[in-house]
């Protein structure tokens, strides 16, 4: 059974030269075809991480003639026809037309959220150095584009920590199924669903921050602004192409409302800003709106590999010991190795952790778990090379030699931004305290369970 929704990543057969560098980076061997001939994507296997989009360098040349014109190609991809940048063989179908329509629809109350990895990379598309940190300009640009509320996925990342941290502590203290897996990365979740369905119960039941934010927009946010959930159009700006898929999943619906209505990648947002003629580099620094735009440094860390783990440790430590953590900077979870193991000593409790980046690296560990040999409690998995900062929807680095420095700079901006925050731990975010006090009750409570948790399902494709 092929899901129509999974047909997001494509390869233009007219442009593809069949070099198969995309097949080398594909973590699930979903790219098929002979060397030297156009490749195609097995949509059932594909986890839509978009790494093929990032590496492909086969572009449409002005010196060659193609059956389909550039304009038609841009239209097929939902890219603005006025766009000047070159187009490549591997691409994703965009969602700009939907968002533009919502922005001009006077009935719609638009709420936008912005993933943490977007603010450390979007400025690159406007000539600023690789990894420039631009949260203020990003908020200003979204406001100029006409979104009614400029909210933030980072807020929901803090919320995720409250729920996921509590879930972990509960599983450890009450004897639940361990190890527990993070569920923020939709490509990783799809991978478990199709390749290791027997391990689905290990996934945290938490929705990803994107989906938690969406749910909050149409409930708490709707109340705060006195608007009907029906009128809210919820948009997410994401570094990730697979977030488009996640937002369309039927599981990501609460009381008849789809949590997120449209997802734009970092690059698509850059197209929108250019089309509107906004001069990004000279924008003033503005703030995200409250309440759903306030975040802690921990929430921001979600965009780097090890970030969810670090944020979770900062909170879980204090949940377990009732004491402040001696050092908020947890170095051993950081870094770029594919697998990083460690132990957190929280009072008498020893929490063993594993951080994995690059989906291929997780396979031996999953096999270990299947054999019953796993000796750890919590595992963070990110599909992309160094986490979301290197996601498939991020600014595409032109030359392979520059990717390493791009990732390095985006990561160091991430940690710098964390250090700049007044609050560094999710549970200290005042708006998080307020949302539990005024609306959700307590983590893992009835209401939070209904709104913020979900279920995963075995998929048609199985190896």
């Amino acid at each position, binding site marked *: 059974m092929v899901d129509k929704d999974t047909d997001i990543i494509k390869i233009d057969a007219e442009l593809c*030269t*069949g*070099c*198969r*560098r995309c097949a080398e980076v594909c973590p699930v061997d979903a790219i098929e075809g002979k*060397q*030297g001939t156009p490749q195609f994507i097995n949509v059932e296997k594909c986890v839509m991480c978009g790494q093929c989009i990032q590496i492909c*360098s*086969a*572009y449409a*040349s*002005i*010196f060659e003639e193609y059956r389909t014109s550039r304009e038609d190609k841009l239209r097929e991809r939902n890219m603005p026809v006025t766009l*000047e*940048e*070159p187009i*490549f063989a591997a691409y994703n179908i965009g969602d700009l037309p939907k968002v533009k329509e919502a922005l001009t629809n006077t009935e719609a109350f638009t709420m936008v959220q912005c993933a943490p990895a977007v603010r450390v990379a979007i400025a*690159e*598309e*406007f*000539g600023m*150095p*690789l990894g420039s940190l631009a949260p203020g300009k990003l908020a200003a640009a979204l406001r100029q584009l006409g979104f009614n509320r400029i909210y933030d996925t980072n807020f929901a990342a803090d919320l995720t920590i409250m729920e996921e941290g509590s879930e972990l502590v509960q599983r450890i203290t009450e004897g639940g199924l361990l190890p527990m897996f993070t569920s923020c990365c939709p490509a990783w979740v799809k991978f478990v669903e199709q390749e290791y369905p027997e391990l689905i119960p290990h996934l945290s039941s938490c929705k990803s921050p994107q989906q938690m934010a969406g749910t909050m927009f149409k409930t708490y946010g709707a109340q705060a602004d006195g608007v009907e959930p029906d009128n809210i159009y919820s948009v997410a700006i994401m570094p990730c192409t697979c977030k488009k898929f996640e937002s369309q999943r039927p599981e990501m619906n609460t009381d008849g409302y789809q949590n997120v209505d449209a997802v734009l990648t970092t*690059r698509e947002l*850059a197209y929108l800003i*250019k089309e509107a003629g906004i001069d990004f580099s000279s924008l003033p620094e503005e703030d995200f709106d409250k309440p759903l735009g306030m975040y802690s440094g921990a929430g921001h860390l979600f965009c780097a590999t090890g970030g969810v783990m670090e944020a979770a440790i900062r909170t879980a430590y204090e949940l377990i010991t009732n004491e402040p953590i001696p050092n908020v900077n947890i170095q051993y979870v950081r870094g770029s190795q594919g697998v990083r193991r460690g132990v957190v000593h929280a009072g008498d409790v020893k929490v063993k952790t594993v951080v994995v980046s690059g989906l291929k690296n997780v396979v031996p560990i999953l096999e270990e778990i299947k054999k019953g040999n796993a000796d750890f409690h919590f595992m963070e998995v990110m599909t992309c090379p160094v986490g979301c900062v290197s996601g498939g929807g991020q*600014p*595409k*680095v*032109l*030359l*392979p*030699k*520059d990717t390493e420095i*791009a990732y390095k700079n985006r990561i160091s901006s991430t940690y710098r931004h964390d250090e700049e925050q007044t609050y560094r731990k999710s549970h200290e975010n005042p708006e998080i305290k307020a949302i539990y006090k005024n609306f959700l009750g307590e983590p893992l409570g009835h209401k939070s369970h209904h709104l913020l948790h979900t279920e995963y399902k075995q998929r048609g494709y199985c190896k």
Partner: protein
Amino acid sequence: MSIHLNSFVLADPKKCIGCKVCEVACAVAHRSEEIKTVGNMDIPVMPKLYLVKTADVTMPIQCRHCEDAPCANICPVFAITQIDNKIIINEESCIGCKTCMIACPFGAIELAPAFKDGKPVFQSLLTFDSEEELSSKQAAVASKCDLCNDRLNGPACIEACPRQALTYVNVKKEKQRRCTETASKTGANIKNLIV
């Protein structure tokens, strides 16, 4: 008199996978400002080497910097000259007559639309009819590999190729290398044969 032969870049079709990274790197290297991500490419990608795919081979083709360069010999406005060890086109004086393009035995010359600071360069007088109005015509200039004349690290294509398929051929050294290789490979055999 010692002869300085011009160097050139040559691709190994056994290694080339046809990814076009070399073309992208070339186009980026010839922009005056530094460009790192695709969103900053505000003009078409205009490389000076051209990936060619036939049924049997895949490799980029680029200028050989001929010693008796037919393009330079035939250019009516003397826009092509020998500078240092390279054959260079002066794009400012090029009139876009395409003679060099036809003269080149390798197809290494392309006529590329002219841009300056990310904006198209229009011809001063020539216009054409379009949708009932007179439009200016964009200038086109001859363009070919200049061995990254202005680049500190030499040819960008060589550096960028993920398969190390491109090499900078220093003709004298290459000839020496081949001679030495032949000597050591076949010399011993011949020695045996004669003795």
